[in-house]
C-alpha cells in the first residue's frame, strides 16, 4: 500500500565512499555525493513509491534534511534508514547522550517522506541555514 510518509529508525555510519570523500577533503564532490544520500530498504521505498536517487525529506525531533534515497544494495533492512556520517546526517541525529557523552547516532526515530522537488543543500548552504555562517 502506498503511504505518504513512514516512521522508521535512523542509523548513521560509515561507507567506504564517505571514507574516501573525507580523506580527499570535505569540500570535494566525492564527499558531498557520499554523505547526502540515504540507504533505504526496498520495501520501504516501494511503500513511498520512491525510485533510486529520488529526494526524500527526513525529519526528527532535532530537525529535517533533504537527501537522495538509494536502495540498500545488500539484503533486507526493513524499518531502518542508513545515512553516512556527515553534517547532513547530523542535522537530524538525536543529541541524547544518556550521560556518557555519546549522542544517539544510531536509533533516532525518523519520519521519511518523498520530497522530489526539494533541493539538497550544499555544505555552505547547510551551515548558513543551521548556524548562520
Amino acid at each position: 500500500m502506498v503511504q505518504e510518509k513512514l516512521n522508521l529508525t535512523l542509523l548513521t555510519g560509515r561507507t567506504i565512499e564517505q571514507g574516501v570523500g573525507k580523506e580527499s577533503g570535505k569540500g570535494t564532490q566525492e564527499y558531498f555525493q557520499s554523505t547526502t544520500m540515504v540507504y533505504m530498504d526496498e520495501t520501504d521505498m516501494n511503500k513511498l513509491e520512491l525510485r533510486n536517487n529520488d529526494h526524500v525529506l527526513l525529519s526528527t525531533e532535532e530537525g529535517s534534511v533533504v537527501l537522495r534515497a538509494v536502495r540498500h544494495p545488500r539484503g533486507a533492512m526493513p524499518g531502518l534508514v542508513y545515512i553516512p556520517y556527515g553534517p547532513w546526517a547530523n542535522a537530524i541525529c538525536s543529541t541524547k547522550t544518556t550521560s556518557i557523552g555519546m549522542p544517539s547516532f544510531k536509533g533516532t526515530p525518523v519520519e521519511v517522506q518523498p520530497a522530489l522537488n526539494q533541493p539538497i543543500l550544499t555544505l555552505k548552504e547547510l551551515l548558513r541555514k543551521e548556524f548562520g555562517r
Partner: protein
Amino acid sequence: MSIVKSVTCPVCGCLCDDIELTIADGAVAQVKNGCAMCEAKFFSHNNKHRITTPLMRKDGELVPVSYDEAIQKSAEILANATYPILYGWSSTDCEAQRIGVALAEEVGGVLDNTAVVCHGPSILGVQDVGIPTCTLGQVRHRADLIIYWGCDPWSAHPRHLERYTSFTDGRFEGSEWKSYINKVKAAAGKKKLRSLERKGILKERHPHIAPSVNDNKPPEILNKKGRKLIVVDVRKSMTAEVADYFLQVEYGKDYELIQAVRALVKDQELDVEKVAGVPVEYLQQLVDAMTSCEFGVIFFGMGLTQSAGKFRNIDVAISLVRDLNMRTKFAIMPMRGHFNVTGANTVFTWQSGYPYGIDFSMGYPRYNPGETTVVDILMREESDAGLVIASDPVSNFPRRAVEHLVKNPLIVIDPHMNATSLVGDIVFPASIVGIEKAGTAYRMDHVPLPLKKVVDPPEGLLSDEEILSRILNEVRNIKLKTLEVA
C-alpha cells in the same frame, strides 16, 4: 623521483605501515599497497581544499592574517575563558597531543577527544569490566574464529582482513580466503581489482557466498576446521558478504543477544524461543563454535557503541569474552577509527590518568563522561570558548550541540577546509601529520608506529605541534603578566 618504503598510513586505526610512495616534484605521485582511503589521503596534500594561510573572522567574513596575530588572539581567548573546551586530537601525532594536555591544564579547560563520539563507550566498558585483548599479530598467528560485531571493516578499515585477520597467513593459522580472492582476481583479469572491490564498485559481481540473510541459519561451515569468519550486524554490510556466516540482529537488541549467549555459554536454559529475532537454537550453534575454537576474537565497532545501550553493549561483549576464557582462549578489540585516536587516549592517560573528557577547571584532572564531555557541555551551554584541532565536530556532532560551539569564539587548527573551519573564528592551517610532518601514532591495538614526513608542507605552514606550542607560550606569558599586575 624517489620511492619511500614502509610509510605508515595516517587514515584509520589499522595504521598499515607497508605503504610505498613515489614522490615526484615534491608531491606524492603514486601510492602502493594502500586502500582507497589511503590513496585519497596521500594525494590530498596538494589539492585545492587546503587552507593556505591563517584566517580570522572580521565583520562576519574569514580574512587572511599572520600566524602571529592569530596565535596572539587565540591565546587571549583561551587565557581569559572561564570554561573553554579543547576538542579533537585524533588525527594528529602524540607529540602535539602532549602539548595539548599542557595547554588544557594551563587554561583550566576541558580536554576532550573524538573518542567521545566513537569508542568512548568502549573505554567506559573497559573501565567497568576490563578487557581481554591482544595485539593484531596474535590474531593473525592464532585466531581460528573471527567475529566482526557491529562493524564493517570492508568499508571503514579496508585492509583489516588482509593484514590482520581472515586473509593473512600466521604461524598457526593460514589464510582461508586467499585462494578465493585469487580466483576472483583471475576471473576479472585486472590488477586494480582489489582496490575496486574495496571501493565497493565490484560488489555486483561478487557471488553470494554468505548464506541468505532471510534464512539466518548457521551453516555447516561453523563446524569445519580452519579460520572462520562471522559477521553480526543489523544490515548486511560489505564485510558480511565475505563472511562464512552473517547473523542479522534486530536493531537495538545486541545487548539482549549477547547476554543470552553468555547464559548459554554458562549452560543455562532460556525461557524464550528467540532473542533479537534469532532462534535460540541458532545461538546454541554459535556458542558451540565459540567454545570449540582454539583462539577466538571479537572485533566491534559503532554498531555497539552508538546503538541503544552504548557502553553497556561493550560491557556485556567483554563479559562474554571473559566467560569464554573459562572454556578456551578468546580476545576482544575495538575497531578504533581515526589513525591516532588510540594515541590521544594513551597520551592523555599517561599525563593525566584519564583517556578523554578531562576537566582541568579546578587545576587538576577530573573525569566523568556525561559531565565533563564536550557534547554534554555544549548541550548545557556551559563553555565560553573552543579550540578544535584535527577533527571536524561541526560535521560530526548533532546540530544542536554545534549551535553552542559556534556561539562562542572558536579556534580551529586543520590542514583542510571543512565544516568546522568554515564556521570558525580563527582558523590555522597546519601541515598534514604523517605526510608533511613526522610523529608517532598508536594503532588500534596500542602498538606505536612512527609517522613519516615524505614531502614538505606548503611554504610557511606550521605543524600542529608548533602552533600549539606557540599558543601555550603566549598563554603562559599572558598569565604571568596578569599575575604581575595582581
